[in-house]
């Protein structure tokens, strides 16, 4: 656990970077510090491993005041990942990763073996081991940065905008990989970003900081999106926080209809019959592997050609019915020309389709359940069933 206890950083010229910050980053979880530039998030992070010394207050790392041991020793026990990776250009990838174990006195071969393990963990090809950092792509360099930070197996990891310098597609991949790694290693992570979407995606808890290093709100992502503490937080979350919040509701409860799904070789008459009996305005045509081909309008079907041979309307994109969130399902429906979203399984085969209206009902139901849980928790604690009752609740499956 990392605890900030009324931590203030004031510079000699009077600027206050962090103002009486108190928060606790729980064990084995990702705590995100997010806010606009100048909100003191990086300063806060760097005070944990004493790259910057606080003016007032103290920081406890696993119960011990960070200032009780020499800075260099403290730092060898805390992993650190920064934006441009900060790899040593003169050392090979494997030696970069082996840096901290070597500083801790491990033999070269032991440190290298450890480095190879980590290359595997972060998904780096072992063929890259003898390369130098500049021979790697930005995304690969950032993986090396994460591997290097994990090499000595520190309980605590500090990450300062580690994925900001790569392009959006690589960033998305790195974020997902990072969550996968964290699920395996369960480190106590303090993560700085200016990107609220990244914060919502990665954070178990989010601390929103405002200019001057003042803590505006410290909450779970779902609670943050549901109930921003003030106008600043609300503005920082953006105008689509309702949509963002859907990230936390899983799509696997949606009632997917199999009726409007027809095989490509279906005769037009049979297709019309199926549409009429079910009252479906559109039919989704699938191939032999049940992969979606496109939508067809049964009323416009004529002639004797099977539906697969007729002109089909694009289905936009699909969502994974078992793992995706309501946000993905809603996006799929909004994008679809027919207003229906296509749910698929892990192999990409269509399970069924769902209308915007059904998704809207599911959203209302999810919100109602969430509110009910909040109220219930509030009652247990003997508080009035107020709107911001009780501690955060994570009972709803987080579908990331």
């Amino acid at each position, binding site marked *: 656990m990392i605890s900030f206890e009324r931590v203030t950083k004031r510079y000699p010229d009077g600027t206050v970077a962090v103002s009486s910050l108190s928060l606790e980053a729980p064990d084995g979880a990702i705590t995100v510090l997010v806010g606009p530039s100048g909100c003191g998030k990086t300063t806060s992070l760097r005070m944990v491993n004493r790259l910057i010394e606080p003016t007032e207050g103290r920081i406890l790392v696993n119960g011990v005041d960070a200032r009780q041991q020499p800075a260099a020793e403290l730092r060898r026990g805390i992993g*650190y990942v920064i934006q441009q990776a*900060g790899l040593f250009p003169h050392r090979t990838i494997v030696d970069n990763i082996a840096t901290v174990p070597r500083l801790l006195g491990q033999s070269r071969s032991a440190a290298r073996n450890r480095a190879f393990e980590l290359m595997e963990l972060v998904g780096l090809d072992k063929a890259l081991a003898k390369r130098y950092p500049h021979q790697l*792509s930005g995304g690969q360099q950032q993986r090396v940065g994460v591997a290097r930070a994990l090499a000595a197996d520190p309980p605590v990891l500090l990450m300062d905008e580690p994925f900001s310098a790569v392009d959006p597609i690589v960033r998305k991949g790195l974020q997902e990989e990072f969550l996968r790694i964290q699920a395996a290693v369960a480190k106590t992570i303090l993560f700085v970003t200016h990107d609220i979407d990244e914060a919502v995606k990665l954070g178990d808890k989010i601390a929103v900081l405002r200019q001057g290093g003042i803590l505006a709100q410290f909450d779970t992502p779902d609670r943050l999106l549901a109930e921003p503490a003030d106008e600043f937080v609300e503005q920082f979350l953006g105008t689509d926080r309702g949509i963002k919040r859907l990230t936390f509701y899983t799509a696997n409860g949606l009632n997917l209809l199999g009726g409007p799904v027809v095989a490509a070789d279906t005769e037009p008459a049979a297709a019309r019959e199926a549409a009429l009996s079910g009252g479906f305005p559109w039919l989704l045509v699938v191939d032999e592997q049940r992969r979606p081909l496109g939508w067809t309008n049964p009323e416009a079907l004529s002639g004797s050609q099977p539906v697969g041979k007729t002109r089909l309307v694009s289905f936009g994109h699909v969502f994974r019915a078992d793992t995706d969130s309501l946000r993905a399902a809603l996006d799929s429906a909004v994008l679809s020309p027919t207003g229906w979203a296509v749910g698929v399984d892990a192999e990409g085969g269509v399970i069924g389709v769902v209308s915007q209206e059904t998704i809207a009902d599911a959203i209302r139901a999810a919100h109602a359940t969430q509110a009910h849980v909040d109220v219930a928790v509030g009652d247990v604690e003997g508080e009035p069933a107020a709107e911001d009752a009780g501690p955060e609740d994570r009972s709803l499956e987080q579908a990331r």
Partner: protein
Amino acid sequence: MSVFDLPSYVQNDYLGLMGQQIEVSLGACAAGLAISLPIGQACARWRHAYPPVLVFVTILYSIPSIAMFVFLVAYTHLTETTVFIPLVIYSLAILVPGVVDGIRAVPPEVRIAADAMGFGPARRYLQVELPIATPTIMAAVRVAAVSSISLMSVGGVLGNLGGFGNLFTQGLRHFEIRLVWLGLFSLLALALAVDLALRALQRLLTPWSARRSVRA
């Protein structure tokens, strides 16, 4: 008679001149580097110290060598040291900026990463900053070495102290143009060889440097 046979008034054979040339000029360059490393490191750390230091070493560079010889002869007499000291002083004007530029070229995020991983100041300098600064420093060393080789010729005016430069003074004194040509080509060949050797050394020291690597 080979072109490398020298008349007796040169008071040295060809290999003797070459040995003196290499010993004094490269020795001065090495000594200059040893002095420049701490000065350069200090200038990179305390930024405001660099401009005055730079002015100082540049002024030193502008002092004519003959004047320095006259001043030094009183203390070090007619020895190689009298030639050696000015060469060291001149090399500073090239090497100090080289070291400062090299240390400053270490990317800030690399320095922060080194601190954050628990490098102490000495280890950070030796294992991170100095290796990364090496290509820039070596570029300066190559210039300083070649310039030392050339500047040393003036030592010939002190007698037998100019390495191949002795061939110029003796050649002029005895109207032997062959010696002047020999000295000139020997200096050029030596400068070229030293530069190539230092370049090879640089590649050995910095296998990671961008120029040699093949893109992934």
